[in-house]
């Protein structure tokens, strides 16, 4: 009789397993024009990569996928509220986020860098030296997208060295702010920077300073899941390992990027 609760739990968990067959997947869209409930519209390389990876994982765990493109800011709350089962938002794993959602095994690794217009870069290089790093930068306005790890980091640094943080709703908006001179630098993950800068005209923006290696800005990127979906997390991890070991992962990377993500 002691095992009765466990048996009941097992039966209760079966329907939740059954509805795993239909997965709602959120993919971060960095271009707001791509944000649409149907997941249509223009996609950038990173969104396309995430979507391909999501579909491949779904295929491996025998689930049907409904992919929705949403903005980065909506993703964590959406996963937390269980509006989506999987979130591909290029999330670095941090303790604060771990309290809200669950993380899969890492899918790739990333670091962050500062981007500016060449004019601003020259000005700061002349004032503070070419090899100035983020923690020694002074009197700069740095833009970041709220909810991102970069934004969180900048808020922690605000006031020190005369740094101010400017919030932008999307990466497109952030680049616009740089272009308009409303901000000096944009702190963003490298892969996103690659995707965004690839669309801009050559010579419009350039990287400034060394890669940022501060805690929380460099590390592995994970798929996020609601905390309740432990079975799904296990299945996703198994699918990721299988993808890596049979080379499918690298084929998907090659389809979208001319370099390795690992």
């Amino acid at each position, binding site marked *: 009789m002691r095992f009765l609760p466990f048996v009941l739990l097992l039966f209760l968990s079966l329907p939740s397993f059954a509805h795993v067959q239909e997965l709602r997947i959120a993919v971060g869209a960095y271009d707001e024009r791509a944000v649409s409930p149907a997941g249509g519209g223009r996609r950038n390389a990173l969104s396309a990569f995430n979507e391909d990876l999501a579909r491949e994982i779904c295929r491996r765990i025998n689930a049907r996928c409904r992919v929705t493109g949403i903005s980065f800011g909506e993703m964590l709350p959406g996963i937390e509220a269980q509006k989506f089962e999987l979130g591909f938002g290029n999330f670095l794993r941090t303790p604060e986020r771990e309290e809200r959602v669950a993380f899969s095994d890492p899918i790739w690794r990333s*670091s962050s860098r500062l981007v500016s217009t060449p004019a601003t870069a020259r000005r700061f290089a002349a004032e503070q030296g070419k090899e100035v790093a983020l923690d020694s930068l002074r009197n700069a306005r740095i833009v970041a997208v709220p909810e991102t790890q970069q934004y969180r980091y900048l808020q922690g640094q605000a006031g020190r060295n005369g740094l101010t943080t400017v919030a932008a709703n999307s990466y497109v908006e952030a680049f616009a702010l740089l272009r308009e001179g409303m901000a000096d630098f944009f702190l963003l993950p490298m*892969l996103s920077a*690659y995707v965004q*800068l690839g669309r801009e005209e050559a010579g419009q923006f350039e*990287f400034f300073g060394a*890669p940022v*290696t501060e805690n929380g800005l*460099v590390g592995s990127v994970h798929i996020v899941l609601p905390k309740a979906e432990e079975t799904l997390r296990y299945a996703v991890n198994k699918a990721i390992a299988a993808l890596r070991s049979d080379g499918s992962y690298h084929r998907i990377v090659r389809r979208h990027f001319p370099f390795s993500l690992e």
Partner: protein
Amino acid sequence: MSSLFGFKSIRAGHAFALLAAVFVLTFGLMVTLVVLDQQRVINATSRLQEQTVPKIIRYQRLARNLEQLRQEGERLFAASTSQARQQAIFVVTLVSSHPSVLEHPESAQLARQTERFLVEVMRQSATDSRAFAASYDDWQRLAARLGLLVDDVSIQGINLAHGDLSDVSAAMRQARIKLTVALVVVGLFLVLFLVLLRAHLIHPLQRIDRALSNLGVDRPAPEFKASAMVEIHAVEEAIGELHASLQQNEEARQALEKLANKDGLTGLTNRRHFMLTADAELQRAQRYQRPITVGMADLDFFKQLNDTYGHAAGDAVLRAYAGLMLDTLRQSDMVCRYGGEEFAFIFPESTLAETEKLAERFRALCADYDIRLADGRLVRVTMSMGLADASDCPIEIALKRADEALYEAKHQGRNRVVVAQALARR
């Protein structure tokens, strides 16, 4: 066994239990050592699988990323459009900022240097169209350093496996040696076991088997060398005791046989035994046509003696006569108490004439023989005797003839010997 364990003697069960215990301990120790080696192999291989191989993969990826850095640099120099250059410089920046490069200090430094160099050339090219050509030699040197680093990183990764693999092979070699030693130990123990089994169980059992099948009263008791095994020793002692009791039984049997053939009062052969022996003698004599004579004797007036002196006196007289007969008769002659005061004789290898002389001498001896009774009185008893030739008739007939001769002797006045043949001729 005694020389092995220093004991005077030892129980077989204890000896084999001790041997088995030593064997199990030794073999167990060997197996434990082999198991420990196996554990080392398992640990090393799981370390290889779980830690070293991922590390090697990381090194390989780092090498690939550095190689890509070099290639993108080349692409930057080779590119003819600014768009292509932009793309190349993006990838250079991206790769040099990738965590895999950043976490390896030497690579991080060289990658950063490469990126700075290429960005600087790119910047100069905006104003100076010969910037790329001017800095190509510098780039060649940087590219060569990148190439060297790629090789170093690849080899560093592969070297990681070497430690684990040499640990595995060392453990395997040791395990092989230990297994061989274990096999030798098992073999030695088996040989020792067989030798001990043969020397202390099989051989003694074979000796015991031989001794038992040869055991008999007419043979001496089997001799055993002192056995170290208590159990074997006990069996051997039991065989000795068995032999002794066989001999006792034989002696008792012989005593009983004597008793059964003797007359209780006189100690002479009884009638039953006499008849058997006499029949055999008679048949032998008749087969070889040898002379043989039988006789019947009776004490004269024995009934009056009994009546006068009592039965005890009669018994004493009978005993005295029996002693006298045994003293007088030859070794080959035989006498028995035929019943009451009657005696029967058989004289092998004797003709009637010889027998008659002998009987006459005996009769005379009896007639002069004083018998002292228990109360000190002396009595003298005569005897009458009938003889008959037995060489041509069965014992019963011969005895009947002798009895008739005895009757004749009685009739003629007692204290005389009458020969049946004479009787027959008359």
